[in-house]
């Protein structure tokens, strides 16, 4: 089996203003909504990137596409797996059991629960929600395709590999 190094969205926290534009862009693009109608009709966005406050300033949290990903290891239905240089989620397979959320050391996986009626009884449909590097909406991974990177007003984000990351911090 060939292995390629995963890519992930790196945020330069010294640049991040905490404006949360990335959250909005992520939610809108994955849900195929426009901002004004989402606001007006009360559609809640479900961003896969979240801006958190830390003592050092704002930081973003999203899937780092770990090489030895705990979420992949714990998934009981193999809905999470490595493919094409990223940690991929199969929404059809996912049962929303939250094991991946628990296993993720960054808290980068949320589970979205939707109740719906099936045959007269309420059924919960749950799916994990994590950064997919926008492959689900564009079909390929690139910096230009990542909604969060494109939305950042201070250009604090980059799509990089672990090697590039290493180079950055050393």
């Amino acid at each position: 089996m060939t292995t390629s190094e995963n890519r992930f969205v790196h945020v330069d926290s010294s640049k991040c203003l905490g404006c949360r534009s990335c959250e909005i862009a992520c939610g809108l693009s994955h849900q195929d909504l426009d901002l004004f109608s989402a606001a007006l009709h009360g559609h809640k966005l479900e961003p896969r990137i979240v801006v958190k406050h830390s003592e050092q300033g704002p930081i973003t949290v999203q899937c780092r596409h770990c090489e030895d990903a705990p979420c992949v290891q714990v998934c009981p239905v193999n809905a999470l797996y490595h493919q094409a240089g990223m940690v991929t989620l199969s929404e059809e397979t996912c049962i929303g059991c939250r094991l991946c959320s628990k296993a993720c050391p960054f808290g980068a996986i949320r589970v979205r629960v939707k109740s719906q009626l099936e045959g007269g009884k309420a059924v919960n449909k749950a799916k994990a929600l994590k950064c997919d590097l926008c492959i689900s909406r564009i079909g390929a991974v690139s910096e230009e395709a990542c909604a969060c990177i494109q939305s950042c007003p201070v250009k604090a984000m980059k799509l990089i590999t672990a090697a590039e990351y290493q180079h950055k911090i050393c």
Partner: protein
Amino acid sequence: MNKNQSCEPCANEMLTLARTNKFETVWDRYEQQLPQCGFGLLGVCCRLCWKGPCRVNPVGDGPDQGVCGADVHTIVARNLIRGIAAGTAAHSDHGRHIAKTLLEMSEGHAPDYIIKDQEKLHGIAARLNISLDGKEHNQLLREIALKSLEDFSRQDEKIPCAWLESTIPEVRLAKLTALGVAPHNIDASIADIMARTHVGTDADPANLLLAGLRGSLADYTGMYLATELSDALFGTPEPVVTSANLGVIKANCVNIAVNGHNPLLSEFVCDMAAELNDEAIQAGADGGINVVGVCCTGNEVLMRRGIPLATNYLSQELPILTGALDAIVVDVQCIMPSLGKLSECFHTKLITTMSSCKIPGATHIEFQTQTAKESSREIIRLAIAAYKRRDHDKVNIPQHSSTVIGGFSAEAVVGALSKLDANDPLKPLLDNIVNGNIQGVALFAGCNTPKVPQDQAYLTIAKELAKRNVLLLATGCGAGAFAKAGMMTMEATEEFAGDSLKAVLRAIGEAAGLNGPLPLVLHMGSCVDNTRAVSLAVALANKIGVDLDQLPVVASAPECMSEKALAIGTWAVSLGFPTHLGVIPQVMGSSVVVDVLTEKTKDLTGGYFIVETDPQAAAQKIYTAIQERRQLLGI
């Protein structure tokens, strides 16, 4: 071409040049701002105190209130009415400046000014209940000025502003008074908005929005007096033929652009240009001095003097790129600070003239009403000196310009109609509205914005409405758009008007001796002149004894941008007009505010906002609003 740039050829010719030479324009800077902040676009960011900034997240899991507990509706309403206050302050300061000039004239401190339209002055006196009997000219001026300035200083809240009370139907004034939104004092209305939006004061969105309506009507008041007093001072516009677009800049002339809004200075720039013409010729410009207009100062001098219009707001940088603009003289409002930097790339002299408007990179010549002529001479001599430094190899003037028939003040429209019926000039207009030859009236107002292709929405909506026999009026940068595109011509009437509208415009034009129809779009002036259109609507309403919200009259601001436009749009709604916005206002974060502005105001004032960004769909919605009014009137 970038899809969001201009839709007209002169601008695109200059933008190609800008790209080649790496001159930055408003469109480049807009691109650099993208994507714009979602919280800002929704109006949900509150910066009113230093516990913040707070932003409510109406599309997420929270927070749903600011640190103080203000919810999204409070925050959006506060932000909105602060914008209205700023717009009102801008317009009304313009009005105050004109009124104070009248006062200075009466005291002998503004020797260069004269009253050019005595009849208008007397009409104003009558409107303000000032008797003419045996009064010296200066005494009359003084009384008119003081009565107008009283609209900025009255402390009795029960007495509405004189310029509001005397210009709208009684039934409308009664309605506004009952709502508590008839302002007694322009400045107080602005101060009230600032006070109630201070931290820990008004949190009720409906109460906040009512204060916004009052503020907008103060804006109306300030605008109305600005226009009327300017007419008395500089003359009431009459139909005039001129031209528009960048081709009005002449290679063999000293070209001086006047940009901004206030005619107090630009009138003298025009006068002194004529006086100093020989100095320009001696400097080598055999065509002499060529004054051209930009934005609304451009509209002011177009309307009164037939000065050609180079361009409207959004493309105000482009005249500099022709390399043949020797000076750009600015007063106040809608002047891009970028002119400073851009003019330094050329020989062009940017000259600021008002103490409240200085721009880095500009030469400042403080304009005083006491020395209007002298200041203007100094400005023109700076332009001539700049001309001597012009690099003629850099000159690149687009050759296109369109004919413009402008100058349609309310008086001019009534004057043209009086040729059909001297005893009852409004009757032909009214008859044609009633019989459906004219389905309704649409006033295009407002700005330009790089969020849409420049001018395109104006042109699309106007053509759609003209086809459906709607009479079209325009002011401000809307008027600029139509002027540049050749829509203020007889040919445009022939090409775009529906058959019955065309017949009416022909009949009026022929009777008025124009040897052809009235132009398709009537140029009613700068953006401060929107009240000219209201005065016509009020005359119609009074004639048939209805309120303004019953008339098939609509307003449209397809490319609105400024806080002044926000104030104008809000008073149009307050007066009862359906008012279209073609740019999504920064209020969408609050369903309550949106509901009030687009629905609830129907019950309060009869007016409401229509937000529609697609020009074709907007035209349909505007036409539907006209039809609804016609049905209610039973016509």
